[in-house]
């Protein structure tokens, strides 16, 4: 049986911007792993393939072993085509069985199980056509499997997911190095220090309210306090951090200051003091010293967020911080308002006041307005340096994908720049 992830449709993808601008939805970090890893562990397929938006296909091919946008994977085996936003926890579809197309009450595909024998009834030159044909020719059912609606859904349930993922690993104990004196509160069976990880002296690991998983080659420097549930990714370094509950920190991050109930996809720096809470931070982000976000309004009302720069969406939660896209850099002293959307490839300079709640991708927020700044080539030069510092490479393929993202995000950015120009000319 082959499991096939299909990213989209675009109106759903937008709900996961800016994080999903540069990666398939199933790569989003949640708990200790990605959405994909969770679904794969539920289904346990022999084979995996995927379909992503065309503009990111070439880059994603360099990051996965799975065939990408290859229509030949739609033949030759029983197929389970899955919407990657289906919540893995309740996903109990039998991988093999009679063909059926499951839709939710809004008509969105949840999964399509296609028995090999039925493949001859189907055709399609691309995945959309294949799915349309499947829907027309195979039995349709209505299913109530829950799906992720917005990025903040992941943030708000991340702590519980870390606890569930920790239990699934079955890991416990110290396989790395823990230098004395280090204090472990709660049960030691709720702590795992992986081989190669080092915990320096004067660290507190508080597992009283949830497990703490420190992955391979991570380094926890003195005066760090880690409160569970928490996952710290491979080769990440915590520098005297106040790491509150519910954090998932991906690989190769540098984390200092205070972090609470947040997800950091990976390869990002929040080296210095400053508070980030109930936020989702992409890759290759650098948050300057004292960068802080609000995650709670003064009147405790629910937080709204503008994903398109115009229309607020009520998150339904009183606690939501910021969504910060890949390659964004903030200056010292940056203050993000509650429920801020900070696009990918943005440069943000502090103003001393909380910033506007929407900063478009590739925007240079300078002197209180969105500008074109030094342009995208300057951003690419910086990105090249940033990835090089972590032993990774910035490729022409990657740049071509970002060029497309630049075009896709132009309307919101141009509008913000115009608004900025009007302010400048006053």
């Amino acid at each position, binding site marked *: 049986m082959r499991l096939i992830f299909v990213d989209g449709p675009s109106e759903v993808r937008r709900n996961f911007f800016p994080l999903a601008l540069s990666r398939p939805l199933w790569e989003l970090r949640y708990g200790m792993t990605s959405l994909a890893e969770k679904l794969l562990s539920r289904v346990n397929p022999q084979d995996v393939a995927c379909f992503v938006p065309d503009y990111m296909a070439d880059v994603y091919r360099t990051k996965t072993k799975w065939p990408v946008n290859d229509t030949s994977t739609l033949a030759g085996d029983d197929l389970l085509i899955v919407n990657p936003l289906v919540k893995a926890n309740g996903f109990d579809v039998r991988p093999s069985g009679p063909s059926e197309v499951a839709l939710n009450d809004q008509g969105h595909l949840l999964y399509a199980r296609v028995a090999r024998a039925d493949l001859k009834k189907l055709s399609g030159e691309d995945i959309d056509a294949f799915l349309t044909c499947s829907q027309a020719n195979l039995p349709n059912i209505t299913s109530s499997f829950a799906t992720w609606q917005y990025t903040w859904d992941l943030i708000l349930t991340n702590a519980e997911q870390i606890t569930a993922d920790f239990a699934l690993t079955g890991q416990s104990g110290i396989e790395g190095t823990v230098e004395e004196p280090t204090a472990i509160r709660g049960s030691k069976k709720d702590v795992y220090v992986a081989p190669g990880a080092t915990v320096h002296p004067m660290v507190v690991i508080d597992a009283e309210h949830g497990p703490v998983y420190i992955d391979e080659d991570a380094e926890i420097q003195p005066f760090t306090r880690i409160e569970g549930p928490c996952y710290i990714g491979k080769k990440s370094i915590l520098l005297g951090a106040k790491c509150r509950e519910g954090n998932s920190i991906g690989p190769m991050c540098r984390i200092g200051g205070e972090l609470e109930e947040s997800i950091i996809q990976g390869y990002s720096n929040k080296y210095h003091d400053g508070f980030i809470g109930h936020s989702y931070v992409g890759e290759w982000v650098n948050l300057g010293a004292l960068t802080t976000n609000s995650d709670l309004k003064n009147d405790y009302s629910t937080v709204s967020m503008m994903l398109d720069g115009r229309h607020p969406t009520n998150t339904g939660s009183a606690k939501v911080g910021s969504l910060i896209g890949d390659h964004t850099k903030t200056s010292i002293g940056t203050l993000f308002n509650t429920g801020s959307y900070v696009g990918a490839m943005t440069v943000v*300079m502090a103003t001393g006041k909380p910033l506007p709640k929407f900063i478009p991708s590739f925007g*240079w927020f*300078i*002197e209180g307005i969105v*500008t*074109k*700044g*030094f*342009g995208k*080539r*300057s951003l690419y030069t910086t990105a090249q340096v940033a990835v090089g510092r972590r032993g990774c490479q910035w490729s022409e393929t990657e740049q071509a994908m970002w060029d497309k993202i630049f075009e896709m995000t132009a309307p919101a950015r141009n509008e913000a720049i115009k608004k*900025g*120009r009007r302010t*400048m*000319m006053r």
Partner: protein
Amino acid sequence: MATVAERVIAVTAQVLKVTPEEVKAEHSFTTDLGAESVQSIELVAMFEEEFGIEMDEDAALAVETVGGAVEFIANVCKEQGVDVEQ
């Protein structure tokens, strides 16, 4: 209508908070007129607004002098079909 040079000088004076008389064609925006990097961005934005043109950021920010800006902007205006007084 004012010439391109006059308009460039007027915008430069306004952004950099100097008098038009202090702005000469041979002046460097940074070393003679004291433009900081943020003001360079503001200058490009204000030139675009003044002339109704779109400039490539890299090329525009590579222009060092007031005279260079006059020439650069005149060329962009010509390319983009914007009528200006030479």
